[in-house]
């Protein structure tokens, strides 16, 4: 790719699965894309898989997997070992999800179509990624000027859905398992409030996040609400600091 004039930079010294390619337009039009040599993602989206870091041979659930960037990144971190259940409710998204996984040669994945908040409680996973549907405020800077943020009713109902998903995700976690809750929004109602809800309702603990990149701690106050001090362990990524999409992460553990 460098021979073609693409400027590739290492994102940090800790991880070798991710490169920064500033100024790369239309990566989907590259031959190397067809060959499955890379998958383009926002920098902060890549950090989600790294923050979770599923181990080789583990059993992983990606609760809201489409279009499969994070799923395939986790498969790479696992060296294509173990098994990933890539779940997405909408059958129409399974096609793009399946295409991403096939193009990148992912051989350790099955696709399911459950509602994330009702994923069957018949088994437990060592690692869970809950990259939930969100209002997407983190993408404001990259959206075109003509696009407008819409305050729809669906947006207001997101926190309720996110709370159901985080609780179900936690209940599906093995003892000593790790879950990553993430959104690409700034709205505390979809971030700290949701994690706070989990802490109030389950014996969850917040784990440190080490992605080799600086971030701001989660907030502990918003409007009239005060959150648990432990929420400082969550991470907020802002575009002016990381030159990418705004993002929120909470790394959650289940006591053994």
């Amino acid at each position: 790719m460098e021979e073609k004039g693409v400027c590739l930079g290492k994102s940090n010294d800790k991880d070798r699965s991710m490169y920064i390619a500033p100024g790369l337009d239309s990566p989907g039009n590259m031959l190397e894309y067809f060959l499955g040599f890379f998958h383009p993602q926002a920098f902060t989206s890549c950090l989600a898989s790294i923050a979770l870091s599923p181990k080789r041979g583990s059993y992983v659930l990606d609760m809201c997997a489409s279009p499969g960037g994070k799923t395939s990144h986790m498969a790479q971190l696992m060296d294509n070992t173990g098994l990933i259940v890539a779940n997405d409710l909408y059958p129409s998204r399974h096609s793009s999800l399946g295409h991403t996984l096939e193009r990148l040669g992912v051989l350790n994945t099955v696709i399911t179509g459950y509602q994330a908040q009702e994923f069957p409680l018949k088994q437990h996973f060592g690692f869970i990624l809950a990259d939930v549907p969100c209002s997407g405020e983190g993408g404001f800077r990259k959206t075109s000027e003509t696009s407008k943020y819409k305050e729809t009713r669906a947006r207001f109902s997101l926190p309720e859905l996110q709370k159901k998903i985080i609780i179900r995700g936690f209940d599906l976690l093995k003892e000593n398992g790790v879950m990553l809750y993430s959104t690409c929004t700034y709205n505390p109602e979809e971030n700290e409030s949701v994690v706070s809800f989990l802490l109030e309702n389950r014996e969850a603990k917040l784990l440190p996040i080490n992605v080799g990149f600086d971030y701001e701690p989660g907030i502990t106050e918003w409007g009239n609400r005060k959150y648990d001090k432990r929420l400082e362990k969550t991470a907020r990524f802002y575009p002016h600091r990381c030159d990418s999409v705004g993002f929120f992460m909470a790394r959650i553990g289940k006591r053994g």
Partner: protein
Amino acid sequence: MTQWDSSWPELASEDERHHLFGYLKERFGIPEDIFKEYLLFRRKKSWQLIKNVNQVVYASILKVSKVGVRAFQKVGAYVRPTTRMIQVFGHRATKARLEIDEEQLSMLLKGEQLSVDLAVDRGYVILTLKDNGILGLGFFVNGRVRSQISRKELRQAMLIY
């Protein structure tokens, strides 16, 4: 004994596995035993390949819409390995490989055929791109090769970048 949810495709028989993987061995020299660590499922006109790991037993009770990578598909009376299957395992091939350059690839993408001197019987050949990766399959007949790669997936525009 694993109890598969009815949504799972049917597990391929030993004979079916031997038939399909044996073809890869016979045509391309891809060792059959590398597929021992994989499960092969059949769904209508295609076969899916996935790593055979302990966790598949847990997942077997789930309702699935897709399993692993589509490895083979039936085309008329024949069975053909998919582009992605060849891209993953083609590096183990020892024969029926054809290295082409970007100019030749451009011709194939235009729907043209390449005249080549290959010491193989009529049938599929693995197309590799000089100094790059495995593209997929071509079909060799009467000294000419035509592409079997989807032009929706591999577009002419990709050669311009």
